């Protein structure tokens, strides 16, 4: 059970300095086990900071974050992160990158080989195991990074705008693939994005954040609509034209617009 409990968390940068900056204030939210949460918000709302605190890459000023009932004190393989910049090790081959985390958690050689074969098959990337990241397209590189994270079987997957650096077409393909992969290998996922469509298409619930300081503006439920409208059975382009989808997208979009209006 990998529930994420974000318990009244506040993050202040430079708390001891002359000009402290409150990035997030009194953030209170529970991500259920195996739930897919998207976080959207205007830039500077602290969504990446939130994810980094769950990852243990950023300290928490006040409050607590618990993952599987354990307080987060630092980074760990139970909370693998997929970065926008892919962050593959350029001096390692595809295979070496995928098994990097597995080695940390003590997987056997046979398990490593199985995982490489399984994930490259899943990502339709057979035959690339000995290539280096620079020999792959951006989409392929991000697939490898996602495989690297899935391979350690983390309770929680954290994704920081993972498709932000990809072109529109690749991005759509990756979104569809992620839905497929996460349906077959459900994990608790926290997915940070700028894209409203992506957020609605992927998530069970969408957190819309507001800024100054970062807080929850509203939480929109998507899971019930996805199930009743059977999105999973349709290709992504068709889903995005369904009225059930455009309705939710419009709802999130209006919330974001209000935010931006409030700043102007």
């Amino acid at each position: 059970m990998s529930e994420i409990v974000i318990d009244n968390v506040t993050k202040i940068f430079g708390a001891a300095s002359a000009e402290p900056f409150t990035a997030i204030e009194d953030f209170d939210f529970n991500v259920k086990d195996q739930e897919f949460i998207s976080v959207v918000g205007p830039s500077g709302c602290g969504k990446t900071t939130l994810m980094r605190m769950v990852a243990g890459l950023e300290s928490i000023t006040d409050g607590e974050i618990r993952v599987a009932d354990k307080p987060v004190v630092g980074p760990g393989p139970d909370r693998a992160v997929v970065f926008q910049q892919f962050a593959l090790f350029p001096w390692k081959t595809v295979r070496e990158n995928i098994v990097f985390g597995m080695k940390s958690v003590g997987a056997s050689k046979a398990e490593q080989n199985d995982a490489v074969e399984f994930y490259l098959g899943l990502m339709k990337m057979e035959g690339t195991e000995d290539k280096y990241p620079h020999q792959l397209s951006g989409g392929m590189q991000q697939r490898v990074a996602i495989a690297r994270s899935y391979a350690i079987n983390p309770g929680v997957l954290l994704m920081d705008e993972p498709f932000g650096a990809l072109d529109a077409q690749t991005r759509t393909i990756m979104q569809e693939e992620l839905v497929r992969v996460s349906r077959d290998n459900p994990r608790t996922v926290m997915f940070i994005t700028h894209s409203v469509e992506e957020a609605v298409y992927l998530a069970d619930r969408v957190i819309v954040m507001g800024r100054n300081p970062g807080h929850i503006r509203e939480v929109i439920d998507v899971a019930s609509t996805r199930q009743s409208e059977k999105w999973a059975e349709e290709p992504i382009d068709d889903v995005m034209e369904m009225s059930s989808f455009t309705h939710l997208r419009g709802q999130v979009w209006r919330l974001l617009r209000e935010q931006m209006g409030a700043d102007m």
Partner: protein
Amino acid sequence: MIRRIPLWLWSVSGIVLFFGLWQGVVSVGWVSEFVLPSPIKVVDRFLTLMGRPFAGFLLWEHALSSLGRFMSGYVLAAAIGIPLGLMMGRFRLLDEIITPLFESYRYVAPLAWVPFAALWFGTGIGGPIMIIFTGAFAPCLVNAYRGAKLVDMHLIEAAQTHGASEFRIAREVLLPGSLPSIVAGLRISAGLGWQSLIGAELIVVSSGIGYVMTQGQMNLSPETVITAMLVIGLIGLALDVILRMIESRVSSKWKRE
């Protein structure tokens, strides 16, 4: 016209001109052979020293014993400087602790350590190694440090969130990430270490190229001194060529990525 002449020919003509002038100045009698021996005399001395022991050993044996000392000090400097530099680049606190000490040490010339080397090690092997170490250490540390600082933070965070220990981060992320910078540092180190070695040998030992120089000086044999200088220069050049080759290999391999 000038562009047609291959570049290496310019280098060769520079060398020929230099030795020609040198020989000319001595042959014409402008300077005495006691002050500046002619190149021909130096070559003759070089060949003699290769075949007949001087100051206890043949010339190449002196060179080997110098190289042995150099390698000991150099490897020691790299073995301590590189890991320490990487760790300083990774851990802010260590950086704060070491940097002030290091910044004051690095401006003390290696030769300034000679009195202490003599005091602590006498004429033993430790003295010269210590001097070479003080010469070669700084570039090893500085370049590893700068290299580690420039490693993409996301790679370190990716390693951390995929369960890597600090040791693995150092070995599999920081070290390969800063390799081009480290190799460049090793090249600078080799030059400085080799220079300092000769200085050390002038003072504290009884074999080696530096020792040949002091003995040549005492025997009023300037051609021996120049021969030793020549050997120092040639070995230094060879070291540099080898490290340059490694450096260009590493940087071309890394640039692709």
